[in-house]
């Protein structure tokens, strides 16, 4: 297979970024897009077919699909795509429950198809380079980590379904926090053993959390804290990962820079100049699209595996349980019933 034929299901904000990434990939061709909102199909590039139902797209002669639908539709669309023999790149989070996640993982395995959950942060250059610095021993042995995301979801940046449990399955933790859990697992090179947390909805009063904190205990004995908020009032986008080591610390200001403090002093590296935010996210999506494509062509498991992405969701679900019960929740085996 030299050129992968790809389709995109769901042509909203993220779906458009996926479509652009497929179009820009020199080893793939975007051939179809599906969206139930016909207005989102206007002006597709030449050679890209538009469908109002994803079932029609899946009947098309495609190798792979990006699925960019609200979370409550992930399992249904993914299982249908796998049943039709398509490799699947699914937007995070994989699901809002482990039962659906397992069904998708098992269906992909049974079919021998690639199933990948996009985790854009793994492809941002500032995070990759910061991770390489840590791996090279720049801050010594890791002692602890903090991560946070403060995001303004006011009048200007509201995908309404983000704040509705029936569509998103969860709130800020599942939508944004899942990236932070995933990157903490990546940076610490470890699985989460137990989670404690508190959730709030003081910004929007929705039926999902718009703010909260979680405390992650890793199997190695390390710990990390995550703080997140979907803020109603204007606030700059803050997404800072701080890793503290025995010989220094490293802070990644996502979509901006990283700062490294150690016995050599302070080192700051800026990765962006004046690119609009969607262009930065686009670069992450282009990275995951290429990883997905290459893993299919090379017959290998993509990085990170869908199981790993599921473990991040598993930690979020444990957090929800902790927030509801006030207890520390131990995380079990992913495949345990």
């Amino acid at each position, binding site marked *: 297979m030299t050129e992968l034929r790809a389709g995109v299901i769901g042509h909203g*904000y993220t779906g*458009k970024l996926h479509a652009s990434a497929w179009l820009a990939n020199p080893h793939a061709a975007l051939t179809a897009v599906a969206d139930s909102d016909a*207005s989102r199909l*206007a*002006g597709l590039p030449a050679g890209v077919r538009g469908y109002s139902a994803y079932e029609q797209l899946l009947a098309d002669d495609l190798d792979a699909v990006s699925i960019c639908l609200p979370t409550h539709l992930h399992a249904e669309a993914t299982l249908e795509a796998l049943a039709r023999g398509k490799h699947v790149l699914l937007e995070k989070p994989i699901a809002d429950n482990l039962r659906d996640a397992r069904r998708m993982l098992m269906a992909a395995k049974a079919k021998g198809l690639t199933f990948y959950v996009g985790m854009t942060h793994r492809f941002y250059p500032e995070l990759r380079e910061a991770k390489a610095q840590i791996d090279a021993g720049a801050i010594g042995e890791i002692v602890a980590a903090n991560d946070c995301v403060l995001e*303004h979801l*006011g*009048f*200007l*940046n509201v995908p309404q379904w983000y704040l509705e449990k029936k569509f998103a399955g969860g709130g800020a933790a599942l939508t944004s926090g899942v990236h932070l859990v995933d990157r903490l697992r990546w940076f610490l090179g470890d699985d989460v053993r137990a989670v404690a947390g508190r959730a709030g909805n003081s910004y929007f009063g929705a039926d999902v959390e718009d703010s909260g904190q979680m405390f992650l205990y890793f199997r190695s004995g390390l710990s990390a804290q995550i703080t997140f908020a979907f803020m109603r009032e*204007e606030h*700059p*986008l803050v997404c800072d990962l701080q890793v503290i080591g025995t010989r220094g610390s490293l802070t990644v200001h996502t*979509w901006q820079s990283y700062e490294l403090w150690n016995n050599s002093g302070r080192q700051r590296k800026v990765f*962006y*100049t*004046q*690119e*609009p*935010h*969607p*262009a*930065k996210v686009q670069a992450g999506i282009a990275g995951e699209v290429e990883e997905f494509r290459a893993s299919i062509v090379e017959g290998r498991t993509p990085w990170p595996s869908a199981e790993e992405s599921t473990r991040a969701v598993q930690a979020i679900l444990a957090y929800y349980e902790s927030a509801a019960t006030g207890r520390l929740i131990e995380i079990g085996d992913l495949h345990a019933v």
Partner: protein
Amino acid sequence: MAAISVELFAYPWDILEATPERFLDHCVALGVTRAHVTVSYHSGKFLLPRNRSVRVYFPEPGALYFQPDAAAWAGGLAQPVSRLAGSGWLERLARGAAERSIELSAWAVFFHNSALGAAYPDLAVQNAFGDVYPFALCPSHEAVRDHAAALCRSVAALGIFSGVDLETIGYLGYFHGHHHEVTAIPLGMAEKFLLSLCFCPACRAACGSAGVDAESLAAAVRGLLDRRMQSDDASGGQDEEAEHVATLLVACPALAALIRLRMETVTALVKRLSVEAGSAKLAAFTSSFVGSPSNIWMEGVSPTDVGELVECFHLLAYAPDVAQVNSELVFFLALTSDPARVNLTLNLGLPLTTSFSQAAAKVEYALRQGVRRFSFFNYGFLGEARLRWIGDLARIARGDSR
């Protein structure tokens, strides 16, 4: 009665930050029916309060924000093309605007261009002392007018815009600020006006053809300016000295003739651009640099003559004081006669607009004068709360209940 038009100015970098589709959704939510988007712009240092990626933005100097068609650009100068031009922003904006029934205007800065001024210093404005103003091209040059025609033609060829906004289509002069400005001599309106007069070779040639002695006039201008510069008069240099300008025009027929010549040049150019624009309607700007909007003639733009060629003037009602804006509006309407040809443009940012009621009072007064078009500056500069004001002002303008 004509429908109320509510309009918003926006830059490509802010549209890309929001994504074109979300920007248009915001327009719909605010009741905006026309968006004016930058296709050619000057350099700057802009503070962007809502931008997630960059808070202090430096636009690429003098860049185009679209890739012009080579044939349409024939006769145009080598204007740089922004890296944003290849992002597809304009195509997405056009599609989304059509779906949402939002009209688009190409907001084009013409002769204020430091990149072109640096590349073509022989085409730039020169004052009476022969000093070149590298931020401004002089429209007396045929090559500069051809460039304007190419820009207008190229924008029209995109087939996206129903309007073209002509910004800095005249003679930009000393009034315009610059980086790290230093002066130890207080200059008033009259001195700034004199320092804004262009005496480049093309202007001198035009004077010669019209029987105006440019050499003597330039010498007289230099004499007046030198007298001020050597006066060591701390009490001078008040912007309120506008009557001195009127006195100069009455006392010096050659100066009045030069002013008339400049206005004729610009009027003829606008007439040419109205052909190049095809079906798109032209709009002109007043200037925020020359005091009252009616003073736009100081940059060579005749409110009356150009007013007859364009669909409307964007009257930059930026003065904070409500009474001053109302007075300027009435005077401008007296010059242009038709309130339908005035688009009241408010800057809703601080310190120009200190409260919502201040902006509302300006809108309400203009409504009573028959103005039906209101535009707001600017999508990227305003925080969310002030952006919401646009929706509230739109409801006032349309007479909708709150």
